[in-house]
């Protein structure tokens, strides 16, 4: 494991690093620089546009760099025909992206906030996801990648904070991917762009500036549908994705002080998800805790818990546990009450381990 520079709410965190062995070898040969998450995304988009002339980036205000600066410099370098602003019309612009992808292009669509993906929900669920199936593979929109910043930022309120991933995890034909750090973001985004299936890529906006990590400057992809054990442990398996991993990591450190050894897994791809890695870990620890920011009921944690209860029933030593957002709309005030915070996780770790 490489040591990373990780800044999170003033706390230096180690261990949330990428450790794909092959990538590590590659990297040691090439240059890397400490960059934040939005810059890592920006690098990935530069590489995508550079490496395939049939790649397009568009969305609201993207030719100016986008509200989170992820698309800075792209229009200048690749021209207004490949990087352009769309009108404010999510349903239309995603549908447009599906058509563009159906012609064999790579369409990278930015939805300004994940909260605004819902006008495009029908296009994603009914058009994009089922195009291949219903045309018997005559057509597909595999070149489509939808990027959207998701999650809490501390004070975003109802419409700048939501985590809608579970809605899309209910849709066969789509892939849903969420990175936890700059290096992961770059490699996973490039993987999504090049994957021959439509993908939805949710970016943890809390980490856009806060997460800083050494990111290789060259072109690389990280495998989809492959989870990663980012912290080895023996007493309990913890599963999360995106920004929640940083919170989980803090809980692991605290739990360790009480002599509890946690194994932390970054799921990375939510569908199709890597059951093997999760099962192998639960077989070892006998306990499972899943955590996400989205409301608990019907969240993707429910799917993981049900699957594991089914496949690891005889190995489980405690009920599977979930620490998630509350079943309320995302609140403006009392956001910390809503959130699956470190202390809530820690309490549940202890309760599960001492069951």
């Amino acid at each position, binding site marked *: 494991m490489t040591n990373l520079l990780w800044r999170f709410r003033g706390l230096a965190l180690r261990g949330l690093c990428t450790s794909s062995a092959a990538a590590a070898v590659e990297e040691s040969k090439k240059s890397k620089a400490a960059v934040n998450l939005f810059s890592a995304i920006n690098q990935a988009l530069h590489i995508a546009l550079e490496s395939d002339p049939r790649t397009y980036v568009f969305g*609201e*205000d993207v030719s*100016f760099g986008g*509200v989170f600066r992820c698309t800075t410099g792209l229009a200048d370098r690749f021209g207004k025909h490949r990087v352009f*602003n*769309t*009108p*404010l*019309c999510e*349903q*239309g612009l995603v549908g447009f992206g599906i058509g563009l992808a159906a012609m064999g292009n790579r369409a990278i669509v930015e939805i300004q906030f994940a*909260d*605004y993906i*819902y*006008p495009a929900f029908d296009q994603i669920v009914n058009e994009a996801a089922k195009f291949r199936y219903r045309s018997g593979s005559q057509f597909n929109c595999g070149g489509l990648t939808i990027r959207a910043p998701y999650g809490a930022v*501390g*004070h*975003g*309120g*109802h*419409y*700048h904070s939501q985590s809608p991933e579970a809605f899309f995890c209910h849709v066969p034909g789509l892939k849903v991917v969420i990175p936890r750090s700059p290096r992961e973001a770059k490699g996973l985004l490039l993987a999504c762009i090049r994957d021959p299936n439509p993908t939805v890529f949710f970016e943890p906006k809390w980490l856009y500036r806060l997460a800083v990590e050494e990111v290789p400057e060259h072109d690389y992809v990280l495998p989809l549908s492959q989870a990663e054990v980012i912290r080895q442990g023996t007493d309990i398996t913890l599963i999360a994705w995106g920004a929640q991993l940083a919170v989980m990591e803090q809980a692991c450190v605290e739990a360790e002080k009480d002599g509890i050894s946690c194994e932390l897994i970054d799921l990375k791809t939510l569908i199709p998800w890597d059951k093997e890695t999760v099962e192998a870990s639960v077989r070892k620890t006998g306990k499972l805790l899943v955590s996400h920011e989205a409301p*608990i009921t019907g969240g993707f944690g429910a799917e993981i818990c049900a699957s594991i209860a089914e496949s690891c029933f005889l190995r489980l030593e405690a*009920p599977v*546990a*979930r*620490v*998630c957002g*509350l*079943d*309320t*709309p995302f*609140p*403006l*005030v*009392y956001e910390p*009450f*809503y959130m*699956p915070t470190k202390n*809530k996780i820690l*309490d*549940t770790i202890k*309760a599960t381990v001492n069951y």
Partner: protein
Amino acid sequence: MMALNRLVSSSSSSSAALLRPLSALSRSLSAAAAADAPITVETSVPFVGHNCEPPSRSVSTTPAELLSFFRDMAQMRRMEIAADSLYKSKLIRGFCHLYDGQEAVAVGMESAITKKDCIITAYRDHCIFLGRGGTLVEAFSELMGRRAGCSKGKGGSMHFYKKDGGFYGGHGIVGAQVPLGCGLAFGQKYVKDGTVTFAMYGDGAANQGQLFEALNMAALWDLPAILVCENNHYGMGTAEWRAAKSPAYYKRGDYVPGLKVDGMDALAVKQACKFAKEYALQNGPLILEMDTYRYHGHSMSDPGSTYRTRDEISGVRQERDPIERMRKLILSHDVATEKELKFCSREQELHWSCVLWLFSHDIEKEVRKEVDEAVAEAKESPMPDPSELFTDVYVKGYGVEVFGADRKEVRGVLP
């Protein structure tokens, strides 16, 4: 005729409200009886109609109405400036969109309708709320997420509502409020109470598919719906022409008639809204495009100067500012029609224009004081009770349980 009655009653009540708290000057002013004398003012520019005959440019008003417009707009402006500083001192968190520059739309629209008419708008909603009779304390409390807020502190800047004032709020998803407005209008048509709905949206929102769906339904069912496009020429950083093939938003209803209005001129807005209400009650929907401008950036994280020039902004401030326009109107009106009127105040013989000039500054001072007091009061309002996190999700008592984070230990029925 009914509309006219309402117009009279609403303007007289607002002038009463206006004059009550003001200084000795204002009392003498109302005593001068000139306050209610009808006058006629030309709008700054002609209306442009699409498939309809535009109303006359001559707007009838009174000195009292001009002063109330001035005062209400000054109050709105001051409120937004205060919100800006509260945001900068981190007392307002989250997303906050200010309305300064666009005040004439809120004020002019309000003067032509009643509180039984409905208004629904997007997230740039603070001043519409004030226009609908909301108070400064409710506004500031909501902005700071306090109990005394108009949405109990649970909505914040983008979600102001006032049911008793016919204000259906504050919506965060661009364009989503417009079909809702058609539903409101259908409800109004059904009960035949002679009221209408004003559904407001921006030039950016005008490109959403929902807009066209709403227009079609409104026209198909002849709904008393007025779609008000507040064209401030930018949707975030995108200039209208970059996002719209035709930025003539008043024409974009095609089969739905439209009217282009100078949205920086409160009297033009009043005339247009009065016309629109009468039109919609008889014929169905109409689009009003209000040509307006926002001085602030889109939201607090936008300095507002990267996609437009400072000259453009200062040009609008100098030439089209709705408050300055009103101040000038008040003064010039005097020159035109009240030349002879002398006015006695503080044992001095003052010329009417001089009085008005003093008066307008007096109003601004007073408004500033009101705003400061409201801010102070709002700061005293407590945060909502933590249990409010769970209220208003479902109807109380309808059997919904809440769980603790792990779904096991903590369990209760929703308050």
